[in-house]
């Protein structure tokens, strides 16, 4: 176990995390927790209703118009769809074999942001009665663009290099999502109320990074000593345009 740990560390060269990594076996369920709520200051852009007139099979699934998802806010200046992850201090294990599910439903991406570890399998489903094309536009990974007709099996894929990948469907230009490919399994997305929780962290020093597709990144340093829950506050500066 120790040797695997060292080997993994040597390969990934994560400097400061070496002490924590070597210190003991990796505990998944137990360990410390980092939680918090993402908020913003300033004025976020107004989300606009999406006109799905060109795709009646999708339009009929939504009683009220779906809004754009570039900056989804909640009461109390909370911010949803923010990727929160450990950017330093973590010992990244091998990529989970459990696939991440990504749905195209009602001509929207569900979830809007999908988090996955580099190399983790990704399954993309088309639940609609129409053809979608999935067009991830990575900078580091290889780009592809493929149609998925209705009723066809899911597309199995994965991304090897960590980066935030913008995803779009050209057939339905309003469809926009994000694949957050990270070098860690400790990652999550803030919920509708802006809250998040990262669990199962071994004792050590961590850097928590929050990433939002419009407002950039915020970071905080956190030290976990046992199985306690540390709360961090991450605040974004929002601009209307």
């Amino acid at each position, binding site marked *: 176990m120790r040797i695997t740990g060292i080997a993994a560390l040597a390969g990934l060269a994560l400097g400061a995390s070496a002490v924590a990594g070597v210190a003991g076996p990796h505990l998944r369920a137990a360990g410390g927790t980092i939680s918090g709520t993402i908020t913003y200051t300033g004025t976020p*852009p107004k989300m*606009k*209703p*999406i*006109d*799905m*007139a*060109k*795709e009646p099979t999708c339009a009929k699934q939504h009683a009220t118009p779906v809004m*754009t998802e*570039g900056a989804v806010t909640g009461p109390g200046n909370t911010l949803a769809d923010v990727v929160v992850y450990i950017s330093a201090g973590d010992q990244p294990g091998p990529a989970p074999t459990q696939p991440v599910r990504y749905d195209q439903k009602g001509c929207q991406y569900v979830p809007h942001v999908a988090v996955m570890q580099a190399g983790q399998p990704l399954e993309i489903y088309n639940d609609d009665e*129409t*053809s979608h*094309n999935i067009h991830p536009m990575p900078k580091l990974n290889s780009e592809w*663009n493929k*149609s998925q007709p209705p009723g066809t099996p899911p597309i199995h894929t994965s991304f090897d290099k960590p980066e935030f990948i*913008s995803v*779009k469907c*050209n*057939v*339905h*230009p*309003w469809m*926009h999502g994000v694949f957050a490919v990270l070098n860690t399994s400790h990652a999550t997305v803030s919920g509708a109320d802006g809250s998040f929780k990262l669990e199962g962290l071994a004792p050590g020093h961590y850097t928590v990074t929050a990433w939002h597709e419009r407002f950039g990144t915020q970071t905080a340093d956190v030290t976990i000593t046992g199985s306690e829950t540390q709360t961090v506050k991450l605040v974004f500066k929002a601009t*209307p*345009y």
Partner: protein
Amino acid sequence: MGKFFAVTVGILTIVSAGIFMFHVWWLPPDISVLGAGIDHQLNETMVASGILFVASQLALAVFVWRSSGSTGPIKIFPGGATPMVVIAVVLVGIEVAVLTLVGSKVWAGLFMVQAPANALQVDVQAEQFAFYFRYAGPDGKFGAMDPSKVSDANNNFFGLDPANDTTARDDIVAATLAIPVNRPILLTMHSRDVGHAFYVPQLRIQQDFVPGLVIPLHFTATQTGKYEIVCTQLCGLGHYNMRAYVEVMSDSDFAQWLKTQANQ
């Protein structure tokens, strides 16, 4: 076998022509001011070429029927090649001349006259694979378009800059072309990526979008209702699904529609 050929040609001709004649499949009802001219031109052409079609196919069938397997002396067509040339030059020539004269007028009415001054201008952006329509809003002015501002993710399909451009703030952008009935409409058409086309069969109108050009197109719809706009210029994988609706409304409905859109 020669007789089989003659009969087959005869049957194929009569069935083919009959389906045209009885409008088994035909154009959808016309809802535009200039559509009648196009329909008239098409009908004239249909009659003239229908006669030519049936006559030449049946002549072929009859000649084959009579000459196949014949062992008698050969006969030259009376007059040789001369009647053929005369028929072609005179009949087809007259047809061509008439069609050109009448048809050019129809064409000129569609594409060679300016839109009337009271026309409602709607700005159209085509992209892979959707149409978006823009109305000037209360100020009557269209905001400037900046390609670098275009963002599908943010519903900024035209590349407007409401932060700095005050004329852009009240622009109404919709995925449906709502228009008032019986009022001339002027579309200013531009594409932001590849070639597309605007086609509404009921309006009898079709026009390409050419990237880099702004192309005017005008028409007047005469009947309210909801009709499909489809793309007829191959534009990529989503070409078959590049469509929108044109909703022809009464004046009051249109005013109401504009108000609802402006509030969003």
